[in-house]
């Protein structure tokens, strides 16, 4: 994809009040409650990532914000307006990349973009937008002949035609190759820098780690974890692992304040993992490692393959989702 920096929506008022407000949103489908009382805000220039397993309620949340569903209870507001049924006040101010492509595959790329262009009051230039997503050389090709990643780029391009101030991105980079994904991330970052409020759902945790200012992990219709990436990871703790010395039994492992220990079998050997939490985020890992090394020296054993790492978003995600749910998913 091209790395040319093309003009993106700018010169629009930013604000310290949220562009998107969700309060105690609940959404039922018959007896099934897909979303169970979630709340969050998204401010201009902020990207809020909504993560979760399939069926967690992410798409229902996005679709409610897009105006397809009326909340069963609670409120959603976009620029202070109820988005239900896409009121004229929000047209052009919001854009969306749906989970599916939503493209008329019998049209060519240019016909499709031109149609969106012609249906918009203050559109961006067709060639500019095609170059932005690196589809300029595919303009004359029927959409059905594009690859999955190219279709995602086209739908992203269409969502940007109207210079939206709020953008809903439902798994926008699914099917893209790594280069296209990176270019898409750059486009999204530039949109943020120009004050666009972005709601992103993705199964690529790296994508959320790179782009999100704040994130939430949904599970079974509820937000289980929310905050900045650093804040979420800090809460989740550091991991200190090592191969269990043969001379040591699991009951002999020492206990430390603000930490828990678990032992698992991997490759036929026992591995110990300390999860260290606590307010002193910068030093807590050092404190426990130092105590462990001292303990090992005192017992005359070596902590082989000793490693320390902070929690990853994947750790948090897996913990929230639960191994059973993932296996069943």
């Amino acid at each position, binding site marked *: 994809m091209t790395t040319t920096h093309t003009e993106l929506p700018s010169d629009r*008022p*930013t*604000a*310290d*009040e949220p*562009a998107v407000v969700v309060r105690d949103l609940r959404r039922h*489908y*018959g007896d099934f409650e897909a979303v169970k009382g979630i709340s969050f805000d998204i*401010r*201009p*220039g*902020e990207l809020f990532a909504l993560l979760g397993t399939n069926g967690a309620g992410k798409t229902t949340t996005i*679709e409610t914000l*897009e*105006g*397809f*569903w009326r909340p069963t209870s609670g409120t959603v507001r976009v*620029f*202070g*307006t109820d988005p239900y049924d*896409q009121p*004229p*006040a*929000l*047209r*052009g*101010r*919001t*854009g*969306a990349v*749906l*989970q*599916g*492509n*939503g*493209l*008329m*595959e*019998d*049209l060519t790329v240019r*016909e499709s973009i031109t*149609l*969106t262009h*012609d*249906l*918009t*009051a*203050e559109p961006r230039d067709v060639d500019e937008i095609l170059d932005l997503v690196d589809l300029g050389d595919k303009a004359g090709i029927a959409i059905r002949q594009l690859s999955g990643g190219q279709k995602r780029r086209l*739908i992203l391009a*269409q*969502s940007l035609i*109207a210079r939206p101030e709020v953008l*809903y991105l439902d798994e926008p980079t699914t099917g893209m190759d790594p280069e296209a994904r990176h270019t898409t991330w750059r486009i999204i970052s530039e949109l*943020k*820098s120009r*004050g666009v409020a972005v709601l992103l759902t993705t199964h690529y945790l790296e994508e959320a780690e790179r782009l999100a*200012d*704040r994130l939430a992990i949904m599970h079974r219709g509820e937000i289980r974890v929310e905050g*900045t990436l650093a804040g979420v990871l800090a809460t989740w703790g550091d991991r200190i692992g090592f191969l269990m010395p043969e001379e040591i039994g699991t009951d002999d492992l020492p206990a430390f304040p603000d930490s828990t220990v678990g032992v698992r079998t991997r490759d036929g050997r026992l591995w110990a993992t300390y999860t260290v939490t606590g307010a002193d985020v910068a030093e807590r890992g050092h404190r426990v490692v130092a105590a462990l090394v001292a303990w090992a020296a005192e017992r005359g054993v070596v902590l082989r393959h000793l490693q320390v790492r902070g929690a990853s978003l994947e750790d948090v995600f897996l913990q929230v989702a639960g191994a059973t749910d993932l296996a069943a998913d």
Partner: protein
Amino acid sequence: MSTATTEPTTRAAARPVMSPLRQTLRLTRTEFTLFMRYKTAWMFLGLAVFMFLVPLNMPGDPVVGDITTADLALIAALGSVGLIIGIGHPSNVFTARRESLVLKQMRVSGVPRSALFGSITLMVVLMSLAISVLGVVMLAVVSGALPKDPVMLLLSVLLSAVSMSFLGLLITPLARTAESAQMTAMVPMMFLLFTGGNIIPTGMFPDRVVNMLGYLPTAAAGRLAQASYTGYDVFSGYESATPAGILELWVAALPTIGILLAWSALFLVLTVRYFRWDPRQP
């Protein structure tokens, strides 16, 4: 975290939006492009043309003045053009577009339902008019007759196309795929076709049934087309039909026009009420 500034926002700063009428006209252009590329659309077009061939083999018994049974069936076929294309095409493409999320994407892109419904209806109207012109040429060649009241004929084709387009849209919630939409559409299409008077002579039915069938949209459109083409007031039956002046004919046609408008309104209300944008069942 947020990169928000302290500049005050304009919460109600709605953007200029393109009028639904302009969007409708622009979408109609694309509908035309796509119509030309859809094989199924051509099939419905061919079927509509075929409707004009069916009456050619009918007996040419005079019914109203010099106008024969075959002529009347051929004229009534003008009212069935909208039936074939109107039920067939919108139900097919809108179901396919719903399943492939095109409708949802359009909606979130700021295209109102009036533009979406309007463009497909306009497309059906244009195609129906084009086929109707072909029908009029065929009639002129076969019987040498031209419509006595072209405006009323135009209105019959128009109302038939509009009401049937809305019926076609109304079918889409009942189907999960374009293929099942085509099958589902066949039920009302065949029923209305066989009760419209140009394939099966409705005179073979009891009077009570014939009167009831007259309230159906295709029969009403066919009657309106026959009156406009022949200049006879056929609204109360062929036996009592008499030549009528323009004004007299329009007055006589008002109840039939009302029937077609009522069907159009009913189908539109039901379409708006039950139309589904999302392939997911709520």
